[in-house]
């Protein structure tokens, strides 16, 4: 052990801490030491478990209906989040750490590595410590902050139509978009996601990968004039402007845009 001894002094009376532990009332340093003690103390484990009945009752006594908008937001977000597999943390991301520069972000940035980045985002967002290189962590944290920024906004709202789902916040000018359930494009063609803003030219948010489903996009810097999202089929690699009618279109009015 190279740690300073002061961090490891034994708890003076660990057996008296079962109740504060069950109530989540231990300060962080005592919590860590008590949990080490708990791992070897059957009596403490039994006592903590017995109090789980009491805290469950206290918890349930506080039940109130959840706010109505939360359901759609959570269910939409769940479609963009990968799960951990049992017994181990999420697989390490294949995402390369994107170069970080001092320049402004482009208006809309598709998540380059899709689901893998989102797994990392979720992990970081939810405070799970995973071992990663610093570069991956920094890139993941930056994205986590942006996604959380949108998801956590008081005015964040969700909308869904066909295969297009969006969670957007007008106050934070951001949106998280997923595209699912689209038939694959014919050979030599790609699906492309667009942002429509009133009379302004449609802006490409990116080309969907051929592998298709659950491709999440993070859009930042949205202004009030953003009116809808649309997916079209375009020649391989995408177009400057949409050249076909939308396969699916989603108005942004219900999520606070399109003034």
């Amino acid at each position, binding site marked *: 052990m190279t740690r300073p001894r002061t961090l490891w002094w034994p708890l003076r009376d660990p057996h008296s801490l079962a109740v504060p532990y069950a109530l989540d009332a231990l300060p962080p340093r005592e919590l860590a030491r008590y949990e080490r003690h708990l791992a070897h103390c059957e009596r403490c484990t039994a006592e903590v478990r017995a109090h789980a009945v009491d805290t469950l009752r206290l918890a349930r*006594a506080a*039940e*109130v209906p959840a706010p109505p908008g*939360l359901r759609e937001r*959570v269910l939409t977000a769940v479609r963009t989040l990968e799960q951990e597999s049992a017994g181990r943390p999420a697989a390490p991301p294949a995402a390369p750490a994107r170069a970080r520069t001092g320049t402004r972000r482009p208006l809309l940035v598709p998540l380059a590595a899709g689901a893998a980045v989102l797994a990392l985002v979720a992990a970081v967002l939810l405070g799970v410590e995973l071992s990663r290189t610093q570069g991956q962590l920094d890139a993941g944290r930056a994205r986590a902050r942006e996604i959380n920024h949108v998801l956590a906004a008081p005015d964040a709202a969700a909308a869904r139509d066909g295969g297009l789902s969006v969670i957007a916040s007008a106050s934070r000018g951001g949106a998280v978009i997923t595209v699912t359930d689209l038939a694959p494009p014919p050979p030599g063609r790609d699906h492309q996601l667009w942002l429509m803003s009133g009379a302004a030219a449609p802006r490409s948010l990116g080309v969907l990968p051929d592998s298709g489903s659950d491709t999440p996009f993070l859009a930042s810097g949205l202004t009030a004039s953003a009116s809808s999202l649309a997916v079209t089929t375009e020649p391989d690699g995408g177009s400057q402007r949409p050249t076909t009618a939308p396969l699916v279109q989603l108005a942004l009015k219900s999520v606070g845009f399109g003034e």
Partner: protein
Amino acid sequence: MDVTATADELLTRVGRGDQRAFEELYGQVSGPVYGLVRRVLRDPAQSEEVTQEVLLELWRTAARYDRDRGGALSWVLTLAHRRAVDRVRSVRAAGEREERVARRAGTPAFDQVAEEVESGLERDWVRRCLGRLTDLQRQAVTLAYYDGYTYREVARRLSVPLGTVKTRMRDGLLRLRSCLDGASA
């Protein structure tokens, strides 16, 4: 007979990636989670944010759930309580001003909500049984569990020694349990 899947069954299915099971589970746990988080945090906007984090974490980590080690609701509410307590402590650490604002904004709405839950029989009994504890027992339990103070902070707020606070917490929980077991018998 019972067509509604239990939370335990649903969470097990969620652990295998079942989104429909998650939708159903949402219906069963969102109220308890939101209510508990809000009881600790009071501020509705922050409570909604923490509730959302908890529910997404529930989705993401559901595969860790082991039915043999306890009920799904207990698992979820333990997670929710820890997140709420973490948040309320960091809000307090960030400054008393923010907390006062949150409390001022949250208190009237909370009282209103408190009326709504009167109808729940078990909830009613919890409240009644809390009323049968001594003042010190009740304050020790509720300052810790519902307000997110550490036992050391509770001792300071109540001006009693640490050992006393730990004992009162324990006595309070045991008395609550025997009162509620008597009530449901």
